């Protein structure tokens, strides 16, 4: 079940909220959250609920064990090492077996049959933060198993993030939380996220697929020749439109999911980490990664980069640490060579920026924005084509080296039929609307009437309009992938 599906919106969500608010105690409410989370997970992956239950049980027991050992003792170290081994071992088994085998020849049939359990990349990391934080003394080991399970399985963020650190949520989750203060913002945030996904991300996705092949087409090795011919015959405008739409789609898609998760959290008084902060307005790759998928980069910073020594052990060691982090970031996005290249591609730019470029970029505002966007857009070409044979043709085509015209019938008509939408989408990927709306509100001054009017727009007109439009589009179309489910 995805958040932007009708059955989630008009069956699961209302029912879960109804039951939640019918419970009187916080414990009861948490139990209702747990039950609905397990239903939510089982809806997509009936079998792998067991894996989630077992992994949580193992990590719960290990954390308890660690808390009984003296901090820093050999026993504690052994336990935390074992936890990492089991958790990461399972992740590697489910996600990377096939890729690892392919390095050593043919992939055995039983390995090919391995299915990636929904959200395993997310909840494995969440559980790891819990055990490691307990080991570091930054969190208290939870005595109740179902608490750990609730933390790992909570349907708001279990399957597509944000990756929430245990220590940042445990107090609200298990001690006490104020359920009402942020409820209106939660509702509004959810509606915005829903529309961002259904209106913006899905439409951009359709356009991207039209010019850059659908995922299924890219994965279909038997159709390589005809698909490649299609890419090679696409006009320059078509390819640019395709890759720009993909750039927009991937941001809208993933940030919309985070918006909806954060919104649902706020509806019940839980505050999750912000995951995106307008990454496309960045002026350097360094800044981009502070604004893009923040919860993932923070995870790698706190649990890989800094433990490896960060920048404290000389430049050569820092380079190595950065290399490891970016190779892992790339691979986390998928078990395929192109994702590794995509991660290392950013590593190269980050190092160059650290050496000298960042200082230059800081002095040239517009040019640095342009520089960043070009890197990001070309990066998404690497990211999109899991079959790397397409990549040279795409790059050649983007620069008109495939011998096609600048425009053709299909690209011209598609551009004309979507020009207002595309302009709106580009603006929506920046803080433009937020700033304008803020200015309008400020202009209203202290007038109580106007403040009331703005409230009506913020909490009534906007959410109702967005929910209704999203529903209409969801009923009209079936194209509704969540990109980050693959990871």
């Amino acid at each position: 079940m995805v958040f932007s599906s009708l059955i989630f919106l008009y069956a699961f969500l209302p029912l879960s909220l109804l039951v939640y608010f019918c419970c009187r105690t916080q414990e009861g409410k948490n139990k209702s959250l747990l039950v609905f989370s397990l239903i939510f997970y089982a809806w997509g992956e009936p079998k792998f609920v067991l894996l989630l239950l077992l992994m949580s049980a193992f990590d719960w027991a290990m954390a308890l064990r660690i808390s009984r050992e003296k901090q820093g003792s050999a026993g504690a170290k052994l336990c935390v090492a074992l936890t990492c081994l089991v958790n990461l071992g399972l992740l590697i088994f489910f996600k990377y077996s096939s890729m690892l085998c392919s390095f050593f020849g043919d992939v055995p049939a039983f390995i090919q049959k391995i299915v990636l359990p929904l959200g395993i990349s997310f909840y494995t990391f969440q559980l790891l933060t819990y055990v490691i934080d307990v080991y570091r003394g930054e969190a208290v080991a939870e005595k109740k198993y179902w608490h750990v399970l609730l933390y790992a399985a909570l349907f708001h963020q279990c399957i597509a993030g944000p990756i929430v650190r245990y220590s940042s949520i445990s107090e609200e989750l298990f001690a006490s939380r104020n359920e009402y203060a942020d409820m209106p913002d939660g509702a509004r945030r959810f509606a915005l996220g829903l529309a961002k996904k259904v209106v913006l991300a899905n439409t951009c996705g359709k356009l991207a697929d039209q010019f850059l092949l659908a995922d299924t087409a890219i994965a279909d090795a038997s159709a390589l020749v005809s698909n490649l011919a299609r890419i090679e015959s696409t006009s320059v405008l078509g390819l640019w439109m395709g890759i720009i739409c993909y750039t927009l789609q991937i941001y809208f898609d993933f940030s919309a999911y985070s918006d909806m998760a954060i919104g649902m959290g706020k509806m019940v008084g839980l505050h999750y980490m912000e995951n995106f902060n307008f990454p496309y307005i960045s002026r350097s790759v360094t800044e981009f990664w502070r604004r893009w998928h923040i919860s993932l980069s923070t995870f790698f910073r706190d649990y890989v980069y800094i433990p490896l020594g960060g920048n404290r052990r000389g430049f050569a060691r820092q380079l190595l640490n950065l290399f490891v982090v970016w190779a892992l970031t790339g691979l986390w996005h998928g078990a395929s060579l192109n994702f590794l290249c995509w991660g290392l591609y950013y590593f190269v730019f980050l190092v160059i920026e650290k050496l000298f470029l960042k200082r230059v970029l800081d002095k040239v505002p517009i040019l640095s924005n342009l520089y960043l966007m070009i890197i990001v857009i070309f990066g998404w070409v690497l990211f999109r084509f899991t079959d790397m044979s397409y990549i040279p043709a795409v790059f050649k085509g983007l620069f008109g080296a495939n011998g096609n015209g600048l425009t053709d019938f299909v690209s011209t008509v598609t551009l004309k039929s979507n020009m207002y939408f595309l302009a709106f989408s580009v603006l929506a990927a920046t803080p433009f609307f937020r700033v304008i709306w803020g200015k309008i509100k400020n202009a209203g001054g202290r007038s109580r009437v106007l403040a009331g009017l703005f409230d009506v727009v913020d909490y009534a007109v906007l959410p109702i309009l967005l929910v209704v439009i999203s529903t209409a589009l969801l009923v009209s179309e079936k194209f509704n992938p969540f990109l980050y489910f693959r990871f």
Partner: protein
Amino acid sequence: MSDELDIEEILREVKRMSAGSDDTGEVQVKTPAEPAPAPESQAEPAPAESPRAARRRQEREQRQIKKRALLRSAPFFTTLAIITVIAWLLPLRDTVSETERRELEKFPAFSLSSVANGSYFSQIGNWFADTFTFRESWMDLGGFVEGLYGHSDIAITGSVGQSSDVIPTPQVTAPPAETTAPSPTPALTEPSDEPVTETEEAPVETTPEPLPSLSPEEVLQGMEYSADASAIVMNGDVYPATVFSQYYCDLYAANISRAAELLDGKCRVFDLIPLRCTSVKLDKSVREYMGFALDEDVLAYISSQLDERVYFVDSLTPLAAHKDEYIYFHSDHHWTALGAYYAYTEWAKEAGVEPVSLDEYTEGALEPYTGTFYHNSTKKNPVTVDTVYTYDPPGDIHLYIIDSGTGDSPSYRGFEQSVVTQMATPEKYSAFLAGDHALCTFVNNDMEEESACLIIKDSYGNPFCYYYTQHYKYVYVLDYRYYFNRSLSNFVDTYGVDDVIFCTSMFLVQGEGCNSLLNSLIR
């Protein structure tokens, strides 16, 4: 325990919120006019306040916060609740979509295996979405929103601009280059080399040799326009994309040539390939710009590959001469009976007979008709609704129909059906031959001479075959997608056929299903 909320804690929380420490959200906009400044008053309590009074005040403030939060959340949650209630008014849900002309998803049947692999739940999700209450109105709204995305008189559906093969120039006498089968590799059965048993010229009762029958799925695969067909919507008309596959054109030409060889000396073999409206109604330059395969070149290529005994009927020129008339439906991939008539006149020229004027026929009209392309209609680029004009042929004519699985013979022609069916259902095109059936037979009792023709067709042939009743006593209309009873030579011998006319649309010629079915029929 946790029922008694810690007021201090809550107030601290509220203070934190209103101080904006939480306002890192990318879409949050700070409300400048924040009413209810509760935390400030808490920070400096009135000096004379007793602890009890303070607690009461705090509780009051807490209630106010809750009330305000609920008030502001109400619009969203109410909307969610109202649509939820509407969505669960199950009797209001449709089971069939008239505009899309398909059955909507059904609630899945329960089975342990489907629950275990998750398909049960995903199908419930599909059912819920596909039959959503008031789906037509929701879709109208969705169409309206999508209409705001841009401004264009032309709409594209599907992936127009797929690469076609380059059409070889037919003048070249060299054998065509070896073409490769598009993937997935079609499983073709080689035509059998067994000599066909010679039977007497006169029609006799023979035992049919049933053809290798295919499962309905195999038969229907790629046999009709899929709803996702690539097309362009312009001025109320839908223009499907045209493609060219040399591999399939070669297969098709080989099939028809084999028929001519097989029936050499027994009957004439005509080949007429109905085109889609795109090739007939749009100028060549426009189609080139759109990246469509040019059907005039495809026709020339196919005819160059055909055995010289085949009478090839040009299906483009006669229709293009009348392209401003109502020869194709706006909302459907078929030609109209008028379009079929012009193709027939070209056949008549080729066959050396005088075509019977349409004035002799009785015209009828069935409306409204929304065809297979009608689902491409949007608020911005609406597709024109059609009328199906029928032409009832003059004379004492009877139509008999046999469906798949029933044996046919000259003594059993099946059940009788009115020549033109007055369709009450939306599927008005079924007025012709009452839809697609394995074998239809027209008998014209006004004809003295015992003549017979066989039309091997897909659905384009349905309005087309009516005109043959004026030239033959028996018109056998065989739908090669449903007929598996006899081989072609057996049929010709059994029924004493004088002329065979292939009428297979260009769309199906370019595919696997048509060619493998023709391959198994023509023997």
